[in-house]
């Protein structure tokens, strides 16, 4: 007996009005990319990276926080981000293949892993911030003078599971680059509420209302193991992906600190 999920997936916003569907957590003003312990540049020399169609969602947000998907904006943003991604990844020193979709059963597999990727990178984004750190993900530090044993930092040890190797079988790639972005722009009602909230600050009844929601995550998945070997997000992510220049800015932010593969010839010389 299985759950039937509607074929038309309505992606309301990540910030859903229905209260229960919303989570807001503070993140630091800046973030740095995380790299899996033991992941070395040498591993990606001569590697093939498959870049799947980015998972892009754009909508508008009402004064009440209800996020309405906008198909036209989403289509434009997806095309712009994809074009910027192709340009950016083609500059990487690795064999890169771009794939929108896979065929047949492989298409279902890719959709399932896209959904899991979203959940995993959201967990990484939330739990890599100091207030939400999971101690089990920290590195062990022995007790020292005036200091008890504790865990600190965040180790990137999240995974999609070894079943992700099905995507390796389907594509012949060693790694998959996956990107998820969600933007929700405040509509006129929300902007009015934002202005009213700011005016309220003058009389001491201040209600801070954000104009919208903008999140983006990029991850490199080792398709032999399913492990996330590199992850990046930027809480102050910029760029309006609805226009091409904004999409370039967005992609540049997401690919900042992307590990640079080392050509085999350089490796041989180094050794």
């Amino acid at each position, binding site marked *: *007996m*299985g*759950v*039937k*999920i*509607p074929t038309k*997936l*309505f*992606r*309301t*916003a*990540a*910030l*859903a009005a*229905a*209260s*229960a*569907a*919303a*989570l*807001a*957590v*503070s*993140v630091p*003003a800046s973030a740095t990319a995380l790299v899996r312990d033991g992941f070395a540049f040498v591993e990606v020399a001569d590697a093939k990276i498959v870049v799947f169609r980015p998972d892009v969602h754009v909508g508008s947000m009402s004064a009440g926080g209800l996020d309405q998907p906008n198909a036209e904006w989403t289509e434009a943003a997806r095309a712009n981000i994809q074009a910027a991604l192709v340009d950016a990844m083609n500059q990487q020193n690795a064999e890169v293949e771009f794939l929108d979709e896979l065929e047949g059963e492989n298409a279902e597999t890719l*959709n*399932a*892993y*896209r*959904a*899991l990727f*979203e*959940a*995993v990178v*959201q*967990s*990484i*984004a*939330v*739990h890599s911030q100091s*207030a*939400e*750190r*999971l*101690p*089990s*993900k920290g590195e062990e530090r022995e007790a020292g003078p005036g200091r008890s044993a504790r*865990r600190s930092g965040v180790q990137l040890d*999240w*995974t*999609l*599971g*070894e*079943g992700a190797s099905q995507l390796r079988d389907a594509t012949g790639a060693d790694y998959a680059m996956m990107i998820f972005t969600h933007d929700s722009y405040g509509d006129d009602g929300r902007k009015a509420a934002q202005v009213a909230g700011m005016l309220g600050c003058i009389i001491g009844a201040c209600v801070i209302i*954000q104009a919208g929601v903008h*999140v983006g995550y990029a991850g490199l998945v080792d398709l032999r193991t*399913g492990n996330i070997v590199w992850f990046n*997000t930027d*809480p*102050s992510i910029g760029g309006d992906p609805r226009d091409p220049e904004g999409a370039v800015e967005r992609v540049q932010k997401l690919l900042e600190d992307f590990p640079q593969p080392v050509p085999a010839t350089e490796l041989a010389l180094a050794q």
Partner: protein
Amino acid sequence: MRVFIAAATLALASLSAAPAHAGWRLIDDNEAVSVAKGKIEVTPGEEWNRWTYRPVGRSEVWTLDGVSLNELYFVSRLQDGKTIFTDANRKERPLPTFSASMLLTDIPDFYESSSRLALNTSVFEITGIEASSLAGHNAVRFTFEYAVEGSPLRRKGLAVASIFDEELHLISFTAPELFYFDRDLPKVERIIASATLD
């Protein structure tokens, strides 16, 4: 700056009520620990993280990788008239309350209706119900599958519940169907099997 993500688990659905200073603590893996300020002790066996925030009075949330990937939820000594999850949206979607007159066979329906409302989802199905035991008491064990609006991810869950002294005691586990549920289920089964009355 803030990050917003869809709440796909019961802990996330209760976060709007969580104080900003809530955080996570590591649980000793091989020592029996009392959970949810109640009568039940379990032995973790793994390094789980415990949330310092309690969604309802006597409850506790554990996770390994983040609650959207593996969420272990304990409720202990839930009394008549109380909800099993945070009643975060009680004006529009009030959660059902536990009744001391409920039978074990009523609990799967109670859990399902509570989950549907807390997660605001219509995609929730109980996939199995059987008699079981929890900390030496008769219990009902049930499995379920669900998804939330805005996410195509299929999720699975398992819960074991018992009623004694007219109070509800429950342990539930939810995780994505793909990889995480099957990987972590044996760990959860060991925790449920380790439950004793303290």
